[in-house]
């Protein structure tokens, strides 16, 4: 075998090893969480409220809370983010202003989530007086999701070929009609990718809801957007840091983690499914 063939073989092997290491990390996370949590998951766990000082019962209110918070965040962030992306890609004059905006948005994505939490506390909870509530938490999470949605949407819209924009304009469509009827539909799969990513992120965040929405224990289910809620990530955090029955609580915490993981994955799956279907209709 020639030297360069050997080099090539070695190179590929190294790359394979890196890839394998990744699989091992991912696999072990899933394995350990599942190993410790799976046994506690049953129908009761999914449908009952906690009982006996968090040592028994289920986490149903936390599941519902997480769903509400995530949904609220997306309802808030999706239109705002897409609108912002439309402005940035289609309307704003090209040049340094847009570049500064783009950099700022990317920086926003890098801000630690606890900072978002403090911001939400100051602005939504205190200043607007929404209190610790689903609304405050959703808005805070929404702001956290904004940069993800904006940059994904921007990317998706930039990827829409100029040629079909021209086709639309050449048929006598206005710029706005072109965006609404050609660019956005074509960019939809990409925008959905952004939503998938942000759902995953938002559903799992603890810090932003720490001061704005979450409670360790709420009796019953939330009845309005101004209710405090339980949420899975915060529930896990609280189980591990508070309370008087560490052993029982740890078991429940693992089960909750597994649940959170499953929840995030299934939401992602759903979005991926929608995206695939969209692609199929568009790409033949």
């Amino acid at each position: 075998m020639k030297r360069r063939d050997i080099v090539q073989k070695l190179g590929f092997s190294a790359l394979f090893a890196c890839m394998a290491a990744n699989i091992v990390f991912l696999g072990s996370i899933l394995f350990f969480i599942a190993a410790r949590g799976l046994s506690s998951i049953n129908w009761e766990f999914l449908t009952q409220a906690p009982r006996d000082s968090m040592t028994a019962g289920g986490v149903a209110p936390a599941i519902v809370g997480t769903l509400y918070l995530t949904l609220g965040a997306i309802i808030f962030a999706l239109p705002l983010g897409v609108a912002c992306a439309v402005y940035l890609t289609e309307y704003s004059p090209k040049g340094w202003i847009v570049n500064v905006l783009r950099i700022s948005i990317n920086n926003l994505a890098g801000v630690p989530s606890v900072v978002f939490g403090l911001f939400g506390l100051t602005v939504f909870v205190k200043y607007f007086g929404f209190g610790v509530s689903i609304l405050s938490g959703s808005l805070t999470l929404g702001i956290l999701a904004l940069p993800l949605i904006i940059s994904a949407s921007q990317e998706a819209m930039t990827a829409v070929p100029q040629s079909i924009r021209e086709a639309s304009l050449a048929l006598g469509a206005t710029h706005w009609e072109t965006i609404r009827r050609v660019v956005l539909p074509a960019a939809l799969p990409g925008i959905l990718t952004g939503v998938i990513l942000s759902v995953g992120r938002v559903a799992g965040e603890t810090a932003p809801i720490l001061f704005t929405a979450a409670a360790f224990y709420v009796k019953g289910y939330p009845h309005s957007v101004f209710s405090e809620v339980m949420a899975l990530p915060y529930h896990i955090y609280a189980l591990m840091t508070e309370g008087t029955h560490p052993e029982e609580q740890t078991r429940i915490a693992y089960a909750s983690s597994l649940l959170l993981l499953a929840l995030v994955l299934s939401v992602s799956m759903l979005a991926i499914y929608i995206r695939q279907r969209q692609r199929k209709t568009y790409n033949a």
Partner: protein
Amino acid sequence: MHDLNVDYEKQMGMENFHPALVKGPVGVNMNSLGEADLFGAEPKISARGVNFYYGAKRALNNITIDFSPRRVTSIIGPSGCGKSTFIRLLNRMHELVPGSRLEGEILIDGLDILSPACDAAELRKRVGMVFQKPNPFPKTVFENIAYGLEVNGVTDRHVIEEKVVDSLQKAALWGEIKDRLKDSALGLSGGQQQRLCIARCLAVSPEVILFDEPCASLDPISTAKIEELILTLKKEYTIVIVTHNMQQAARVSDQTAFFLMGDLIETGRTDRIFKAPRDKRTEDYITGRFG
């Protein structure tokens, strides 16, 4: 052989002879042939002293040219000669390029299309465009054609359906895809996609159709179909086609214009340009001596 017989029979009556054979300038000195009264009609489109700039760079120099109604004019020239730039002025697509500037006049039916009183969207309805690469929308075949009608305010489903069928027939595509109206347009072959783009353009009933290298990405059979289509369409529309393919220009057009580095070097009847160009640079280009 079979075709030849048909043609022969068709031509048995004197009135059926090709017009050029009956009253055309047969054997007339090609060099003294007038240009202005080429086809004896008021020009449909008339460009007068057009200069065009990308930023500081001048892309077109003082272009003056007429296009006769219901004729095909081809614009030929090497890459970067400004031919695509020029036809994009005719439906004001140049406005999409930031920092571009236009001087001079472009008249369609005698009206200045560059004046602020002329609405670009309205103009583009009248002056359709088919692009270099087929660019159907990522929608169904039906939606692709209905789109232009919808953005122009047609809401009656019956009218739209009729127009879709009619446009597909005119674009010689109906027979091939009448069962696929609800399928994605992206599933069609390249040649079908391009004819769909032509149908899409026809649906809004333009008066002028601009073709920007419409066969650049097509195989010879598809190219031949598009060329046939252009020859059929010229009975109703004024057509301007930019092409790199000189044989194509020769086959489909009545008038040919040769552009070189932003200048209109020569324009005239296509037969004259390809038999007896006047300018040395035209001769060099069409005989492949360029370089």
